[in-house]
């Protein structure tokens, strides 16, 4: 009995500080944000209860829907671009399919060590209307008014950002996969090869199944990271021109901090959380099914 009490006491003692911090830093703002999302509040005075109005307004706002579409494209490029590419690079480096592996590893990982704002400035210096690439095309085509039209098209303005995100974050996944690939015992792969397994069979039958949990975890990171994408896009385009490259985090920021609509902004942030949780649950559902099928 005494032991049981001591155990429980030590559990509480160890978890309480963390729990208190979690409640104060995570739960309180979330709960407060949920309650605020049903109100109209400019930051002063008493918030006015408006029910679901903020949510209805947001979900019927074409700017929000375009931002959501951009976010889903970022999710798409993260899950189906950064993760497969990261895995392919890690696999090539791990299996020593190219010489100078360390050089490539550093080069691929380098972008993630640079601040998002610096990355944004860098790419703007190249592709903006006053950038190097534009100047070069102007010289070649002898057209001093040439600009990259993609940036001014509603449906395409996000594409350069998707490319930069792919360039920037693939290295992170590569390093994660590389570290996990190194955990697979070389003797298993050697044994498979002695048994006559081809490179493709080794990859399909041994490496991919053992990497599956890591891939699923990184997919969760990719989804949640994509839905809260803000810094790089804000520094690159500010969501413009004319909201073309806007994402929902920028939509939330603008409404909250530029228009002082705290209730509205809270509702947008709750929508981001719900979307993130929803997509992650869908992913987990499929992950479990695949895991069950693989036994």
């Amino acid at each position, binding site marked *: 009995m005494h032991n049981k009490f001591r155990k429980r006491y030590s559990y509480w003692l160890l978890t309480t500080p963390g729990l208190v911090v979690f409640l104060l830093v995570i739960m309180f703002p979330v709960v407060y944000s949920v309650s605020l999302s049903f109100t109209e509040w400019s930051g002063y005075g008493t918030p006015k209860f408006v029910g679901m109005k903020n949510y209805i307004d947001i979900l019927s706002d074409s700017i929000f829907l375009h931002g959501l579409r951009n976010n889903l494209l970022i999710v798409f490029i993260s899950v189906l671009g950064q993760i497969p590419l990261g895995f392919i690079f890690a696999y090539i480096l791990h299996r020593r399919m190219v010489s100078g592996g360390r050089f490539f590893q550093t080069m691929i990982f380098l972008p993630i060590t640079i601040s998002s704002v610096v990355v944004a400035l860098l790419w703007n210096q190249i592709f*903006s209307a006053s950038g190097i690439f534009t100047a070069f095309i102007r010289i070649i085509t002898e057209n001093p008014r040439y600009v990259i039209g993609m*940036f*001014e098209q509603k449906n395409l303005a996000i594409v350069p950002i998707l490319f930069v995100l792919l360039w920037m974050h693939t290295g992170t996944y590569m390093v994660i996969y590389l570290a996990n690939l190194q955990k697979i015992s070389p003797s298993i792969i050697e044994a498979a090869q002695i048994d006559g397994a081809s490179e493709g069979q080794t990859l399909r039958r041994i490496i991919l199944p053992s990497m599956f949990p890591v891939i699923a975890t990184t997919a969760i990171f990719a989804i949640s990271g994509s839905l809260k994408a803000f810094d790089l896009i804000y520094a690159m385009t500010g969501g413009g*021109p004319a909201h073309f490259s806007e994402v929902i985090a920028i939509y939330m920021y603008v409404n909250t901090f530029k228009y002082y609509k705290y209730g509205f902004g809270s509702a947008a942030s709750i929508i981001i959380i719900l979307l993130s949780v929803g997509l992650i649950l869908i992913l987990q559902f499929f992950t479990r099914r695949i895991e069950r099928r693989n036994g």
Partner: protein
Amino acid sequence: MRTTRYGLLIGMLLLLVPAVMFAGAQREEAAGQSGPDKISLSVYHYLDQTDKTTAPNFQELVDAFSKQYPDIELTFEFGYGESFHNKLQTLAMSGQLPDIILLYPGKRTAQVTSAGLVKDLRPWLQGHEDEFASMAMQPQGKNGEIWELPEDISITSIMYTNNKLLEQLGLTLPKTMDELLAQGEIIRKAGLIPLAMANKDDWAMQSCFAGMIAERTCGLQWFDAALAGKASFSEPRFVRSLEIIKQLHDENMFSPGVNQLAYGQGLDDFVNERAVYLIDGGWTVNQLVGELTDSQKAYVTLESFPDITNQAGESGSTSATAGQGFGMNAKLDEKQAEAAWKWIWFYSGPEGSAIRQRHGRLPAYNLDTPKGADPMIQKLIQYAAKAPMGYVLDAVIGAEPIGVFNNNLQQMMFGNKTPQQVADELETMVDEIDRGN
């Protein structure tokens, strides 16, 4: 027993953390009253500390103040761009507004001024009103309050002209917009930009052009009526101002990719003589003083946008607003408020204004044209004296309607919205948010 001792120790340490933190804060607060004769005040200012021109100029002003008032110690905190406003909002909401705060006369900081968080400066200002430009003494509150003492008159639309390029192309300063449009072809053929502008940050077209052109198509009286709800932004005369922007864009008068260019790029093109005209605010003179060579200063002039057909506003008019200035926290006691006023008066009054004028600003305080001032400063002062002034839209329209309008101007230039649609949306939002209907 040992477990209990460790538990108590950890508990004590956890309790000590906030205690240590609060002790630090108390020390800082204590510094606020550092002696019976010395008053310490916190100041929140809008300044880009990396700006090689404005930051040292501001420091010169602070040094002059410290020399004159050694008994007042000012502790500065700076913000710039959107982050300035975000922090101001956070400080105001958390009740931690600094003693002296940079504020705007119009809607930009209305969330602070209209919440009763700052003092009305009229009791201190009494008797000095005539020393300022009349625009700077316009009431800022509903009951005529003056929340901040404007430092400058901010002219937001000037057509900077490179007369050397004009001459080389065989052109003269256009008197009408049609003449300007006709020049476009010649200027572009020479590989130059007719009107340098950069509108990636979306406020530039509205602040540096739309207000001025709306004054031309609508006239000041109509604009007053529209703000009061007695006229509508959906009316043809306001729509006409938007059609002009669309026309200039469609006829390639602006910089190529005007909506992709970050603010400052237009100035760069102009200084490097890639553009014949530059549309920008009067504050740009501050940069031109340092960026232009002496020979360039001789042939660069400050002009107004040419007249338009069926103009309702005044010929040669521009858009202007009283600039920002310092206000003081409503919580300051009498002694602190007196000290705060000394800084506010020094900054926007004769002494600070003379220093700022020397560096290319156009103070709201009436000063004589300084002898030996940079030619660009003299040209700005002369321009301000002759140009009739209309409204700057973001000074008279609320943050949300103007934010939507800025974006809609871009949409209109891309052909996604018509001028009428942009005008209608502005009218709807102004009616709902600003007029409260």
